[in-house]
């Protein structure tokens, strides 16, 4: 027999960046044009893979926000609210098609700026974002059928603030239903990931969408606060941390502003002993290591029935060996870069806390790049509901593993959290799935899968994970006045 004298390793397979065009400096997209910020201040967008500056981004101030909202108001009253619904739909379809045409460019920019693996931006983020536009384009002229026997009217100007974990996908989740229902938009991407939204602004310009219907302004929290507090905004749609969500809720209290908040989570992923174990292990991996764990619905609390826990943990550790951690632009990368230095510090802080709490840590033995922000896939065993790392959202590739004995016990423990965004159930028994879906206090419950998204399926939380639903029919009603 031939003997093998070396390991068979995957050679680097980098996605080319030659086909993308990026400006050195980006202005604000207001009223269909690129305009300089009144602040004349810029901040840097950093590539988390090598810590190099990709571009400079405008920091919009109160005056810029006023301009953007004025443009959106004008476009709403003069053009968009008067346009026949099927015409509105045509524009949305056009945006979807243009995004598809430029999907390769969008995927590369997303991976450069956000640190997510090109496999994910190419196969998940961008196609899903396009699909959201296609899906809601179809609804534009069928709203009467969506809400039979109700009078419907748009809300007006929507202020939309999105996070850094799924930059262009969240932009699509926000913009597509708002436009389909006849609203106009002022959107602010997160400060670490503005580029794909600015690229989307170019696409919107190319689509010929009437000026001011979509305005995209960049900046930090103060820019977002200026949008939230502006008196001429009718609706706030926010995805981000529970902390900021609470501030928003306070600041709009007493106003007429409608809001949907999609906030944090600490979702339970529950494995029963009759589950298809190898697929469940895959579900654990997809649940917590997808997008470096920067997922609000990440399955960050794993519950394994005690009889199979050793086996599942052994399988999980083995599976973690084949996760490739590294350059987000390498087509073989499974776990990319942590989005920012700031977030890496937060994750490392929790890993420290976990160790201090006496939890047993296991990390992938992969080599990490010397530059950039990276965190190896990490699991903690020997934890309890009372552990800090079990209670608080870490927003990184860090999993806690608890065991349970009975169905009732795991339902109680799964619900024993201020959050309630998602849950996963793994079992071969159909009746058990239906039992759990009604008893788990979570907006989304996945059965024998995890982190599956579709435009037709509503998404949103219970309790401190927020309120309101995005996606599907429910996503339409969040942008409509129904009487």
């Amino acid at each position, binding site marked *: *027999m*031939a*003997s*093998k004298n*070396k*390991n*068979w*390793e*995957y*050679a*680097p*397979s980098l996605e080319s960046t030659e086909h993308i065009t990026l400006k050195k400096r980006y202005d604000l997209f207001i009223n269909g044009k690129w305009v300089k910020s009144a602040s004349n201040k810029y901040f840097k967008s950093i590539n988390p893979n090598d810590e190099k500056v990709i571009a400079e981004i405008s920091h919009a101030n109160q005056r810029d926000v006023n301009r953007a909202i004025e443009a959106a108001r004008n476009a709403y009253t003069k053009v968009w609210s008067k346009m026949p619904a099927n015409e509105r739909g045509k524009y949305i379809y056009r945006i979807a098609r243009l995004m598809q045409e430029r999907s390769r460019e969008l995927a590369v920019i997303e991976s450069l700026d956000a640190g997510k693996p090109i*496999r994910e931006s190419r*196969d998940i983020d961008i196609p899903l974002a396009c699909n959201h536009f296609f899906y809601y384009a179809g609804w534009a002229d069928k709203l009467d059928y969506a809400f039979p026997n109700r009078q419907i009217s748009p809300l007006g100007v929507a202020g939309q603030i999105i996070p850094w974990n799924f930059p262009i996908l969240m932009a699509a989740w926000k913009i597509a239903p708002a436009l389909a229902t006849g609203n106009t938009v002022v959107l602010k991407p997160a400060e670490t990931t503005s580029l794909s939204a600015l690229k989307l602004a170019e696409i919107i310009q190319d689509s010929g969408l009437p000026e001011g219907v979509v305005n995209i302004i960049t900046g930090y929290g103060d820019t977002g606060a200026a949008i939230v507090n502006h008196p001429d905004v009718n609706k706030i749609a926010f995805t981000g941390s529970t902390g900021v969500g609470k501030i928003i809720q306070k600041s709009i209290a007493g106003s007429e502003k409608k809001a949907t908040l999609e906030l944090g989570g600490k979702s339970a992923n529950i494995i029963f002993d*009759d*589950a*298809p*174990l*190898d*697929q*469940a292990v*895959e*579900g654990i991996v997809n649940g917590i290591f997808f997008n470096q764990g920067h997922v609000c619905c990440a399955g960050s609390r794993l519950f394994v029935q005690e009889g199979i826990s050793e086996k599942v943990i*052994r399988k999980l550790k*083995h599976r973690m*060996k*084949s996760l490739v951690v590294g350059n987000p632009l390498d*087509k*073989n990368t499974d776990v990319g870069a942590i989005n920012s230095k700031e977030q890496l510090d937060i994750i490392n802080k929790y890993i420290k806390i976990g160790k201090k709490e006496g939890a047993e840590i296991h990390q992938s033995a992969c080599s990490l790049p010397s530059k950039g922000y990276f965190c190896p896939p990490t699991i903690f065993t020997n934890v309890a509901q009372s552990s800090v790392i079990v209670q608080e959202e870490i927003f990184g590739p860090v999993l806690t593993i608890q065991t349970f004995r009975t169905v009732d016990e795991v339902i109680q423990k799964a619900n024993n959290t201020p959050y309630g965004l998602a849950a996963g159930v793994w079992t*071969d028994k159909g009746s058990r799935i239906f039992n759990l879906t009604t008893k788990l206090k979570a907006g989304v419950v996945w059965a*024998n*899968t995890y982190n599956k998204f579709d435009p037709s399926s509503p998404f949103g939380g219970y309790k401190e994970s927020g309120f309101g639903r995005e996606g599907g029919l429910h996503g339409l009603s969040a942008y409509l006045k129904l009487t």
Partner: protein
Amino acid sequence: MSLSPTVDKVGVEERVSRFQKRSIKTSAKMDGLKLVLNMIDLTTLEGKDTPGKVRQMCYKANHLHDSFPGLPSVAAVCVYPSMVKLAKSMVKNSAVKVASVSTAFPSGQAPIDVKISDTKFAVDQGADEIDMVISRGKFLAGEFSFVYDEIAQIKEVCGKSRLKVILETGELATLDNVRKASDLAIHAGADFIKTSTGKIQPAATMQVTYTMLMAIRDYYDETGIMIGMKPAGGISNSKLALHNLVMVKEVLGEEWLTNKWFRFGASSLANDVLMQILKTETGKYQSSDYFTID
């Protein structure tokens, strides 16, 4: 034998699609392709097989493409028992093994004593490896002990020859059955488990191979004993073969990436791999006329 875990088809398909998304380029591609060549069981299993046909195929086993130096030989040649002696004489003094199908291949519809003498004959003729088929009819009828005993008896006859157990997954219908049959074969004494005879479609799909690899993985974790894997039938191009290597590497590990533990049962794969190797080296695809068809 412990209870086999359940298998979720949708989850398996998803996992397999991840293997297929691995991008194998430059040095990894070249090394992988050579590894594939070295893992092939060059096969002829036809009613019309003749000494002439077998002789020519066995010559090719050691002379895949002589004008390109540094290529390995295939792992083995796979023939009917009646051709074992001839095949053995053709590949002597080389690394190429002779594998013989047996147990009333491909249907397995014969009494056990016929299967035993079929196997014994092949072993006596010098077969290094025996590729037996399981009784699928008995398996589907729920007579698992019958299937188990049969494998154990054949294993005894094999002596020093390594036993590959063909599950004929195309007839087992579900991945749950594939998993159950894999566990059964491994516990009954298989050195290798093999997907198919090549006579039934579908044959070695990645979903099926993945399910079998998982059974091997679990057995190894429980006992520390390595079992080999041979997907056979339907793997006719380089890309699919490389994806299979990816799967073996990630599910089982580097230790399995030799022809001692992994084989491709194929008749037309070798030439596609050769074509890709030459293309990787020269940057040009050559006409299929430059690749021999023994």
